[in-house]
Every structure is written in C-alpha cells, then in structure tokens.
C-alpha cells in the first residue's frame, strides 16, 4: 500500500507553479470575515473573480475534461492543486457552487453531447455559479417524493411551477440545477426529471430563510439559505438533462457524489485551528493544550478527524483507481456528519463557553469555534441526513433489501 501520492519532478514543478500563481492571485483579504452585507458581497465578487482566473487556467475543475473547458488534469495534478488551494484555506471552487460540482458531474454522465458542450464550459471556466435545488417543503429526506415543483411540457419547452427550499447561500446565482416532477400521476422513481436553467428567467423569485447556520461548503457561512418560487417559468426543452421521467437515474450519480462517494484528500481545517487555539490560549498561565482534560479531548477529536481523513482518502483512491465501491460513500458522509455533531460537544467541553462566542476578545479567532458549534449541528442534514446515509449503507452492505444496491456511477464520458 501507499498512502501518498509520489510526485514526479514534473509534478513538483507544477506544484511550484500553482503555489506561485496562488500567491500572486489570492489576496489575504479574500479570507476576511465580512464586516457588513456590502462587504460580504464585495468579498463574494472577489472570490468569483478568482474563480474565473482559476477557470481560465483549467484549475477550477481540474479533472474535468479539457474539451468542455475543464483542466483535463490527471488525479495527481488535481491533488496538488487541492493541496495548494487548501494551504490558503480555500476550496475548489472558492465559493458555494453546489450545482456546478454536482450538476456538471451528472451532465457528464447523463447529458447529450450538445448539452455537455452548452452547459459545462461556463461552469468549468468559472463564468457561472450554479445552485442545486432539491428539497421541497414536503420532500426532504424523501427526494423521490418531489411533487410540489412540476414541469409540464408546453410546445418546445417546459413550464415550471412550485417551490424549493434550503437553496444556495447568499449573493444570488447564475444557474439553477434542479429536480422536478414531470408526471404527477406517475410511479415513484419514474416521474422525476432534472433541468439546468438560467436563474434570471422570468417567474423565479427568491426569499431568504433565516437559519441557525448553514453548514455549507468551504467558507460560506452566511447563515442564509433561500426559498425559491417558480411561477410558470418557461424553460427550453434543451434544459432537460437525462430524459423526461429519468430523473431518479440521474439522481443516483448526483447523490453518490453528494454522499461522499468521490472522497476527499486534505486535512480538517477545524482541527488545525483548534489545536493552534489550544496551544496559544492560556488559562491560569497554562496553555489549554497542556491541561490533561483538554489534551484527552483533543486526542479524541484528532483521532476522529484522522479516521475521517482516511475514509476520504480511501474513497478518493477507489474513485480514481476505478475500483468497485459499495457502502463507502455514505459511510464517509455519515462519519463526517456524526463526527461534526459529536465535536460540538467535545469542543464545548474542552474549551468552555469561549467556544460559543464570536467576541474578538474572548472567543476563538474569527469565531471559528462558534461557527463549528452551529455548523456541526446544521451539517447533519444537507445532502441526506445521517439516517438516510445509514439507509444507503445498509442497502449497499446487502442487508435490509432482497437485492444489494449498487453505488451510483460517477465517471462520465471523457
């Protein structure tokens, strides 16, 4: 076995190139905690700009096929990129782009050649941001139960109406990747379809939801998600991906990736900052990290983050070495979610109420522990609750149902 990528001289050169480029193009201010709504928006625009620059180099979606505007890089180069971006506390993309990540992967597998050519380049180049729209008031864990948002064929297009909730973050989106019901009387799993549409179409309105936290992807802890309303929104037929009423098949790819099937390499950022905080914060003259109770808590937390890293590494390896997977995707997701929730208690016990405040004097730097206290809870739900992850695991292990369920396809045309 080999738990590390062995880099060639050429790859090390690439690393140096990436690092130099990032140092030149990532301003430290991009990582600031916004001081106001306007500042938040300005910061967002800076990150989008960075995304476009990364996209132009093929580094925004490094392993995506070059012919559609992706980087076309092999996995080793992609790892180098992820590692280097990680050094700046950023992810790829450096802003919330859920529909871009998951929609593009789905389109790669299930879209027509024309759709790939039309939809993928703007995503891969960072020209558009895309949000995914799945949940409805009546369909959360039960995604197959989507019913409130419908698309009805009308001439050369479709008319969408309905409502989606828990969408995106703040500062709006360019594109929408959504699942709707296209046959209200149809059988379960045979009545859904996916659309990739413009967010600016007439009839689409958004209204922010105020939440305890967002638990979102790297950096976007705006505390806001949107309710999106569709009032007879006309979309072209071309926007339908994977075929009418074939949406559940497409969803298997989408969900496999969302459920952790793709794996992940890289360290746990909360851990790094937590350790540093405990080393730098003294109580009664002694660093927290030198107090036995705190040390014991830190050891438990560290081990869980390490196991999570190892699960992510394994899934990453299985994905890119194209090895068969079964329960590993939802296992990573389940482990990550339950660990995050458990960590809220472990950190609170270790650090005390300082973990709860964003106060610059008495809380942890940039309130990162307070964010963890919220997001450790909130993250348990998006992309499938812990309960749903266990449903998936059990099916793939081959218990609970008469036939063993397979992992969704995550490799597309290349």
């Amino acid at each position, binding site marked *: 076995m080999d738990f590390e990528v062995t880099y060639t001289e050429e790859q090390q050169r690439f690393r140096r190139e990436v690092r130099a480029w990032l140092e030149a193009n990532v301003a430290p201010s991009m990582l600031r905690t916004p001081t106001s709504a306007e500042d938040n928006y300005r910061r967002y625009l800076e990150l989008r700009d960075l995304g476009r620059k990364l996209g132009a180099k093929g580094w925004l979606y490094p392993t995506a096929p070059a012919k559609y505007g992706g980087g076309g890089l092999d996995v080793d180069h992609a790892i180098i990129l992820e590692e280097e971006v990680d050094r700046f506390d950023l992810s790829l993309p450096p802003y919330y782009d859920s529909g871009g990540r998951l929609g593009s992967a789905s389109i790669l597998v299930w879209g027509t050649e024309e759709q790939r050519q039309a939809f993928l380049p703007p995503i891969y180049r960072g020209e558009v941001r895309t949000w995914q729209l799945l949940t409805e008031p009546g369909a959360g864990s039960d995604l197959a139960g989507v019913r409130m948002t419908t698309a009805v064929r009308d001439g050369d297009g479709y008319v969408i109406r309905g409502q989606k909730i828990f969408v995106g973050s703040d500062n709006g989106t360019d594109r929408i990747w959504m699942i709707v019901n296209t046959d209200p009387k149809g059988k379960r799993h045979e009545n859904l379809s996916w659309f990739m549409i413009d967010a600016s179409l007439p009839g689409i309105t958004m209204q922010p939801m105020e939440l305890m936290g967002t638990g979102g992807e790297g950096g976007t802890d705006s505390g806001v998600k949107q309710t999106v309303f569709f009032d007879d929104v006309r979309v072209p037929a071309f926007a339908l991906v994977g075929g009418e009423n074939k949406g559940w098949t497409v969803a298997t790819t989408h969900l496999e990736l969302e459920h952790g099937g793709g794996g992940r390499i890289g360290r746990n950022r909360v851990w790094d900052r937590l350790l540093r905080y405990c080393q730098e914060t003294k109580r009664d003259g002694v660093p927290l990290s030198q107090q036995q109770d705190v040390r014991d808590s830190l050891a438990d937390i560290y081990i869980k983050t390490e196991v999570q890293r190892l699960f992510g590494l394994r899934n990453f390896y299985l994905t890119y070495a194209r090895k068969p997977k079964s329960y590993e995707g939802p296992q990573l997701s389940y482990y990550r979610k339950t660990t995050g929730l458990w960590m809220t208690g472990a950190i609170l016990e270790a650090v005390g109420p300082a973990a709860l405040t964003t106060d610059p004097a008495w809380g942890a730097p940039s309130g990162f522990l307070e964010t963890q206290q919220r997001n450790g809870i909130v993250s348990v739900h*998006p992309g499938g609750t812990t309960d749903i992850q266990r449903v998936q695991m059990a099916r793939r292990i081959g218990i609970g149902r008469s036939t063993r369920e397979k992992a969704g396809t995550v490799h597309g045309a290349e």
Partner: protein
Amino acid sequence: MDLSLTESQEMLRTTARSFMQRETPVDVVVGLQKAESSLERDLWAKAARLGWLGIVLPAEYGGSGDSLSDAAVLYEELGRGPLPGPFFSSGVLGALTVLEAGTDEQRRRILPGVATGETVLTVAITEPNTSWGPGGITLAPQGRNGSFVLNGTKLFVSDATSATDLIVAVRTGDGPTDVSLLHVDAKARGVSTRRLPGFLSWQCEVSFDNVQVPATSLLGEAQRGWAALSRALERAIPILCAYIVGGCQAVYEKSVLYTQTRVQFGVPIGRFQRVQDHVVRLVNHLDSARWATWEALWKLDTGRPATASVHMAKAVASEAYLDVCNAAHEVHAGMGVLIEYGLPAHTQMSRTLFHYLGDPRWHKRRMADALEW
C-alpha cells in the same frame, strides 16, 4: 412515598403554563433572541405581580416563602419557552446569594426590590479563566479611603445587561476560599456591561474601570463570601435544573409532534426506527434530568444532605439538554434549524447552560468529593 406534585404545585403549573402560552408563544421568544437585554419590561412587570420574582424569598423580605420545589415547578414552565430574562439570575441566584451572605439590614434593603422587580440582580462569579471554583476568582479590589476600588473583568455573567445591581465575587485574601461579595450598582461610574455575541444566551462581559465601591457594600463579612455563595448555589442550581427540564420537555413535545405529522416516504416519519430512536434517546435524557433534579429538590426541602445530589443533577441536566437538542435536530433535519421554528432558541440555551454554574465534569468531580470516595 409520593412522586406527584401537590395540589398547589399543580395550580402553579397551570397558571404558569397558561401565562406562557398567552404571553410568550414561540414568535415572542424568537423575537427576544437578538435583544441586547434579556429583560422585557412588560413581561417582567406581569411576572412580578404574579409573585414569581420573590418566589424563593421568605415573606419578611417581600417574597412568597415557597419551597424550592414550588419554585422548580415555575421554572420548569419558564424553561419550556425557553423564556429569557433575568428571572433566575435575579429572582433565584441573586436573591439566595443576598439571603445567604447579607446582614439582616442588607437583606431588608435589597430583597424587597428584587421581589417587586425594581431591583434586578445578577451574580458575577467567573472570569476569563472560566472556572467555577473559588480558585478562579482573582479579581482583587484595592482598598482606598475605606472603600474598594475594582479594576478588571467578569466574564460569562448571565443577564448582566439587564441588571440594576451586581453581586461581585472578589478575592480578598490568599487562602483558597478568601472570597468576599460586593454589592455594586450596575450604573456606577466605570461599570460597563455588554452581551457577548455568538451562539449563547445573554452571557455578558462586565468590566470594572476604577469602580469605587463603598465599604458598606460588602455583603456580610469579608472572606465569608465563598461559603455563602456555595450555600446559595446549592439551593439555586436545582431550580436552574428544573428550567432545563422544562426546556427538554418542550423539545420532546415538539419532536413527538413532528414525528407524528411529518410525512416522508408516504408515512409519518415516526414509523422509522431511526427516528424513533432519536426520540427514545431524547426522552431518556429528559427523564434522567427530571428525576435527578426532583430528588435533589426533595432533599433540600426536607433538610437532608443534598450536596452530591445537587452536583449530580446539574451534571445530568447539562448533558441532557445538550443532547436532547441534538436528538431533536436529527428528528427535524432542515426544519429544525429555521430560527422561526423555535428549536434553535433551545439549542443555544442548552449550550449556554452546559457551562453556566459549572459544566458536567466540574460537577461530577465535586459530586465524587461530596460522596467522600
């Protein structure tokens, strides 16, 4: 043996519950969350008229002379909100501290105002070291012209932004428990209070910048402060636990209702064993907290040695509320994190009270000491 409430306790419960339903439905509780001060004038005045602010005080000091168990019945109802405001800080911990520490003159001067609600107390114990033991108290006043001068910070002080009077624990000697209690006007020059921002409920910073405190503000005798405070804490903590039990109960009821009404995969989600198991975990915590709390109250009210039971109750209740909220979030998934739904108010309160007056580890260790293992 009788594990039911008395008739008068049942009446108090009914009164309090209908008051809460009328005056503080979820939207009111949620609306209060962002206020700098937890005290809502109108509510406070009504509570005073109901006699709730002096519930632990003897009649001679303007209170109703109820038992701790009676007070606990009330606080269980307040906890259901969870109703913010310095009810506990002033009407229980503050009142009991003055009762235990003050001279009779001081009690007569301070306590009637607490019962009427004009005086709002809070007790400032912890400092940046966040320790709840006497060793954690390092704020030492300097003497000047027979009065005290305070410079320093008290941290995570509950409801300080709504207090009129602060009871401040200060270090006045080198012995481990050489602590005294000062009665400080919250509006005195040099005193500033602010609510700490974040995922916690009205835990405040109190800063003292050359604050002059007259010698007469010393509650009772010097160096006896820790002993008095310990007695007050022993009686106050189970009432805080009852507040927590009320919180757990409300979250339990919310969760059961949700499992019965939320339909996914064509059935109420309560049909799924995983969802049931979140509720089972929740109710086990709830009942653990409830019975540990009530046994401690019973011991206190009947004059039995109660120290170990009180420590156990706080440890159990703190852990319970935290994980009850976790379980409820698992039941509710996305719906539970909507601020307007009301669950986040409990979640935030559960995190706050996890540490307030001592976290589970602290209380478990004090329990072991009290049991003389």
